[in-house]
């Protein structure tokens, strides 16, 4: 009964007119950026973070979450209609979805994608509601040593599952840790790595780095690559899928939901990885794998269910342990912190309305998205004709005002431009910026807990090995590291990511 009571509390929060409004706004914005290529959800959330200062905490968080899962829905629309994934997690949907559209089955593909996503979103939101309280009461027994081991595990896992070379990803994490150390050291009160610049005494703001690396760098990159936009292949026919399509799609949706929910929870996982894995799985279990690439409905249903399930379930480690599993969740973590909420096991007890309100709003938002997506598809497709030269100046202005408004000072804007340049160099050097954000966000948390653990143990590192949970986590981390170095595993991983890019 307790569970129903809490769920009722959540819906009570989520269904207030204001929270409903921001949920809808987030879902609409998410769909919009999912549809438009050239701006991703990470950059959008970075731009909007400062604006959520002005909103009540729950409303702001609901809106940002809506952007994240909304983008998963929107990305599929353009992937199917014009073979142009507006968002990384829709890359595989484009393969069979576009072929279906060419065959005159665009409506069917869109409906399967939207309904599959809704089903997956419902299941994994429910998973969050069930897993949340269990996991966080477990996490309450964690001491500093367990937290350190868990974060090390999470950071390393993020590199295994990230794309690109592992060593570079580890380097980017370390770089993020260094950036996180800039400012006054909390324990001694001494300033460090500030080069005596007063502006750096409070540390570098997360938004400055995020807007520099994801906002400015992305604009510069998009301007470098002359875009080629597809054209709508066919008129939208009937939206409702045939019975045959349904029969083929539902097992794929179930498998996609399972795989997505699982991968979303894992550190480093999330929507993109989930959709790619679901596609490979569907190809493997299919009776006629040769149909894939020619318009197989399972190739749309599986990945679309998986990316949405993954997007929702990646909130689980953040909300229950306070540990973000990918750079989107790093964004969400700083959104929470902006509002004075430290996500983690204590939130569920001290501010249950935040956790349950967010969970309920996710389900409401998913329902809204089905409504937004199916009847309004025509509107979204029209938006595709807006050229980038009219879009990017607006994004640029939002980025600048957003950075300025954190502390009302121009120093941050100039610093963000510097990070834009750094981010640009990193992309030229083929370094993914995601792990940097993760390192930056987790750095201070990691340092505090390392210090605490070692103070308790009088400086002996054995504290990390003597506590069973911590030991298990460290062994898992070590196993993962060995696996990473093994040539056969590295090969599989490379093949996997090549397939994704193809």
């Amino acid at each position, binding site marked *: 009964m307790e569970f129903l009571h809490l769920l009722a509390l959540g819906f009570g929060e989520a269904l207030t007119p204001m929270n409903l409004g921001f949920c809808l706004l987030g879902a609409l914005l998410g769909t919009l950026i999912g549809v438009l290529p050239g701006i991703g959800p990470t950059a959008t959330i970075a731009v909007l973070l400062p604006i959520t200062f*002005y909103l009540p905490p729950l409303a702001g968080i609901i809106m940002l979450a809506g952007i994240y899962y909304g983008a998963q829905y929107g990305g599929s629309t353009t992937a199917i209609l014009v073979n142009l994934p507006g968002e990384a997690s829709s890359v595989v949907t484009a393969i069979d979805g576009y072929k279906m559209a060419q065959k005159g089955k665009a409506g069917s593909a869109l409906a399967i994608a939207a309904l599959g996503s809704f089903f997956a979103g419902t299941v994994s939101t429910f998973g969050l509601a069930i897993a949340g309280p269990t996991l966080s009461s477990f996490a309450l027994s964690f001491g500093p040593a367990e937290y350190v081991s868990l974060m090390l595990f999470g950071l390393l896992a993020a590199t295994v599952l990230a794309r690109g*070379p592992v*060593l*570079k990803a*580890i*380097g980017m994490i*370390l*770089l993020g840790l*260094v950036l996180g*150390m800039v400012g006054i*050291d909390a*324990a*001694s009160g*001494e300033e*460090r*790595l*500030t*080069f005596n610049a007063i502006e750096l005494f409070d540390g570098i703001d997360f938004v400055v780095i995020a807007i520099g690396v994801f906002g*400015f760098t992305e*604009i*510069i990159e998009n*301007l*470098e690559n002359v875009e080629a936009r597809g054209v709508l292949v066919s008129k939208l026919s009937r939206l409702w899928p045939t019975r045959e399509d349904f029969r083929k799609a539902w097992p794929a949706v179930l498998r996609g939901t399972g795989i997505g929910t699982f991968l979303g929870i894992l550190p480093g996982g999330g929507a993109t990885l989930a959709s790619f894995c679901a596609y490979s799985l569907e190809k493997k279990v299919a009776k006629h794998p040769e149909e894939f690439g020619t318009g197989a409905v399972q190739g749309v249903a599986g990945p679309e269910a998986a990316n949405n399930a993954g997007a929702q379930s990646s909130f689980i480690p953040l909300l229950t342990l306070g540990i973000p599993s990918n750079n989107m969740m790093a964004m969400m973590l700083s959104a929470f912190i902006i509002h004075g909420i430290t996500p983690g096991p204590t939130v569920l007890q001290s501010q249950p309305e935040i956790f349950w309100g967010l969970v309920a709003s996710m389900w409401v938002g998913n329902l809204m998205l089905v409504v937004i997506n199916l009847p309004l598809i025509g509107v979204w497709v029209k938006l595709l004709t807006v*050229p980038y*030269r*009219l879009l*990017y*100046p*607006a994004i*640029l*202005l939002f*980025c*600048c*005002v957003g950075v*300025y*408004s954190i502390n*009302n000072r*121009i*120093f941050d*804007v*100039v610093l*963000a*431009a510097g990070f*834009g*340049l750094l981010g*640009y*160099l990193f992309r*030229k*050097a*083929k*370094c993914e910026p995601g792990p940097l954000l993760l390192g930056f966000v987790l750095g201070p948390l990691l*340092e505090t807990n*390392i*210090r605490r653990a*070692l*103070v308790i*143990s*009088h*400086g002996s*590192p054995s504290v990390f090995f003597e506590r069973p949970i911590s030991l298990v986590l460290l062994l898992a981390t070590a196993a993962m590291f060995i696996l990473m170095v093994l040539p056969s595993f590295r090969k599989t991983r490379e093949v996997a990511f090549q397939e994704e890019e193809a």
Partner: protein
Amino acid sequence: MADPRKAGGTGDRPDLLTAIMFVGIGALGLWAGRDLTMGTAAAMGPGYLPRIVCSLLILVGLVVGGIGFFRAREDIVAPKLRPLSIILLSVVGFAFIAEYFGFVAASVWLLVVGSLADRESKWREVILLTAGLTAFGALVFIVGLGVQMPIWPF
């Protein structure tokens, strides 16, 4: 994205660039934190972890560079300086103009100069867009949300 040109010889240029940046930033960190007290594991000084992390960063940089040195040659995708320099210039200019002349002047600078980054920009569009976005920005951000920035220079 265009494929990087493949040429004979060895040396993976993106990896070498990575190595230079990792080692450089690590060394900069060590230098900036050279005066910080180290402390002991039980009572860490402010310099304890920065030194460890910076050293690890240098180590990773050296390994990436070492492996990259012997790998088949791969070139860095040639940067296009026009979008890079114009976008950065417009943003830095925005910051300084906002400080002395207020939001409207800064926003006009940002949008007009920023639009030069795309060769396809058309003057008519740029003028209309600038007027619209500047008005929108002033109303929404400064009047509506109360961002602390003067609208006009006076």
